[in-house]
């Protein structure tokens, strides 16, 4: 075996050991990346790479897209827009069996149009929707299971932070990824609605109907949602028509949500500062992961591991779809021990060349990875959204997992559909990007 490859493999092993010590993942990637690069090239070059990668990640026009889209979501979050959207969905759907759970899906899907954070969505809807469902005697498994699952919709529905990260790592168009994620994201939301409907048909006592709203109340609630739809269309439409770069779309979107919140008198200076702090906090976390992956990426590339792995994977005597399933399974397995998003950042530079060599569309693979991430977020042992719900509602984690299972089936069906019909993800981008 080539010495560089051996150093690379030892580096990956050391990295996994470092992860186990509880060190911040981004910093571990920087340490191993710099040390490994020093071994493969020389210490001076490694120090240069560390300094340059850190600074270039921060001072990068394309990467400012994160803070801006996060700001957009955080302003919407502190201004209580999720509550407003849930209220609208509640008025339209609340009276039918399972309606409050369905309202949670519809409200969260609409909120996802401005907020890309799974954790924030889950926390918001746990606070808003679970007490309502409790009041009408919903089964705890359904009420907690659905709020734990809806947070995952943001992985595919634009503006998705995950798709932006994937786009940056693999140098794919973020606009194309946004378009590719939209249809699967909406279809998965519909699958969630169908799952709730099926659950209520089988066990009607799990979700009784609540007090119906009058038609006047329903129509008068609608304008609140229309403005959010308008902002979504401006942001995504601007990217699609080539009028905005994704960074500009983030800036315009954040400003539009700020104006809307001010207009609706939902935003105070204190709330704005809170949204800003959260934006800075989360951006710092994501940027350190990216900087870490940049340094590590330079090391891994210097060892030739991605090319060798790609050649080896392609030469396996297996059907290419089976190979891809194995790769995605590695993502699920890896994401079960390392945080899912961090594992995507870590593993994608290694597997991406192989996936492209196997003939899969890079945009399609991004969406498939998104669905894998959605599954990873809600399955044990590291199920962030489930932990948030359990922490907030004091419902045992086991109960929430049981509630999540039916929705997990919906996600698996979506994945199968993606495999059978790649156009499920690629049709919209093909319409807008010739």
């Amino acid at each position, binding site marked *: 075996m080539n010495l560089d490859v051996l150093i690379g493999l030892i580096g990956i092993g050391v990295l996994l050991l470092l*992860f*186990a*010590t*509880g*060190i*911040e*993942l*981004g*910093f571990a990637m*920087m*340490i191993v990346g*710099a040390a490994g690069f020093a071994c493969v090239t020389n210490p001076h070059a490694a*120090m*240069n790479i*560390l*300094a*340059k990668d*850190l*600074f270039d*990640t*921060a*001072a*990068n*026009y394309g*990467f*400012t897209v994160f*803070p*801006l889209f996060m*700001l957009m979501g955080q302003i919407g979050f502190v201004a209580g827009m999720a509550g407003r959207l849930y209220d609208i969905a509640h008025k339209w759907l609340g009276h039918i069996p399972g309606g409050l759970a369905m309202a949670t899906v519809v409200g969260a899907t609409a909120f996802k149009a401005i907020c890309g954070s799974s954790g924030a969505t889950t926390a918001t809807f746990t606070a808003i929707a679970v007490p309502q469902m409790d009041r009408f005697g919903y089964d705890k498994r359904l009420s907690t299971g659905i709020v734990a699952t809806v947070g995952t919709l943001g992985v595919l529905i634009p503006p998705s932070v995950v798709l932006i990260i994937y786009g940056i790592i693999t140098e794919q168009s973020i606009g194309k990824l946004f378009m590719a994620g939209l249809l699967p994201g909406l279809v998965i939301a519909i699958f969630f609605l169908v799952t709730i409907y099926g659950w209520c048909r089988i066990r009607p006592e799990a979700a009784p109907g609540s007090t119906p709203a009058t038609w006047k109340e329903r129509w008068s609630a609608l304008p609140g949602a229309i403005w959010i739809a308008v902002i979504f269309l401006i942001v995504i439409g601007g990217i699609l028509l080539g*009028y*905005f770069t994704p*960074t*500009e779309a*983030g*800036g*315009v979107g*954040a*400003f539009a949500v*700020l104006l809307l919140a001010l207009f609706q008198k939902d935003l105070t200076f204190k709330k704005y*500062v809170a949204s*800003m*702090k959260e*934006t*800075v*906090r*989360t*951006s*710092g*976390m994501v*940027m*350190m*992961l990216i900087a870490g992956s940049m340094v590590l990426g330079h090391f891994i590339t210097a060892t030739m591991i991605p090319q060798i792995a790609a050649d080896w994977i392609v030469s396996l005597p297996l059907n290419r779809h089976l190979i891809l399933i194995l790769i995605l399974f590695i993502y699920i397995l890896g994401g079960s*021990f*390392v*945080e899912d*998003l*961090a594992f995507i950042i870590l593993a994608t530079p290694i597997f991406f060349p192989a996936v492209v060599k196997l003939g899969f569309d890079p945009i399609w693979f991004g969406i498939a990875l998104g669905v894998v991430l959605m599954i990873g977020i809600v399955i044990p*042992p*590291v199920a962030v959204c489930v932990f948030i719900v359990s922490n907030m509602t004091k419902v045992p984690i086991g109960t929430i997992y049981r509630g999540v299972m039916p929705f997990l089936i919906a996600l698996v069906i979506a994945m199968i559909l993606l495999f059978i019909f790649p156009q499920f993800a690629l049709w919209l981008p093909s319409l807008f990007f010739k």
Partner: protein
Amino acid sequence: MTEADRLVVWRKVAKVSESLSVVSGIAATFVMLLTVVDVLGRAVRHPIVGSYEIIALTGAILIGFGMPFTTTSGSHVFMELLITKLPRSIATGMNVATRILCFLLFAVAGVNIFRFAGELARAGEVSPTLKIPVYPFAYMFGVCCFLQCLVFVFAVFRCFEKEGGHR
């Protein structure tokens, strides 16, 4: 230093980090407003010249000054699966070791970013359109790395607290 003293010092460090994050917040607001003005200006054929490079350089301020706050608020992603299951003394030892590693990382990064900034200054590296010198931003980012080092120094002391540890 007693545990109470350590906690007081840590709170001060956290407060300073939070204050620095205000600079980041202002940078984020500036980027948002600049983007909007640029887009609107483009609609009337008066875009802001060099907006991309201003945004990129402001990004260094946004991320640099936000780094210590992200750390003191425990927002970085880490794997807690194993560390939470270990006996307290071993977990504390591991936390101390990782804090020291992180301190060394940012010390090395800071020194090398300073060197990099010096090279940029010597080469007269400026942004393409507005000709803004890049080196002051690199020096600033290096300073932020050293601030991050300070956070890790105090985080080492926090590891010995009865409850909590460094996160």
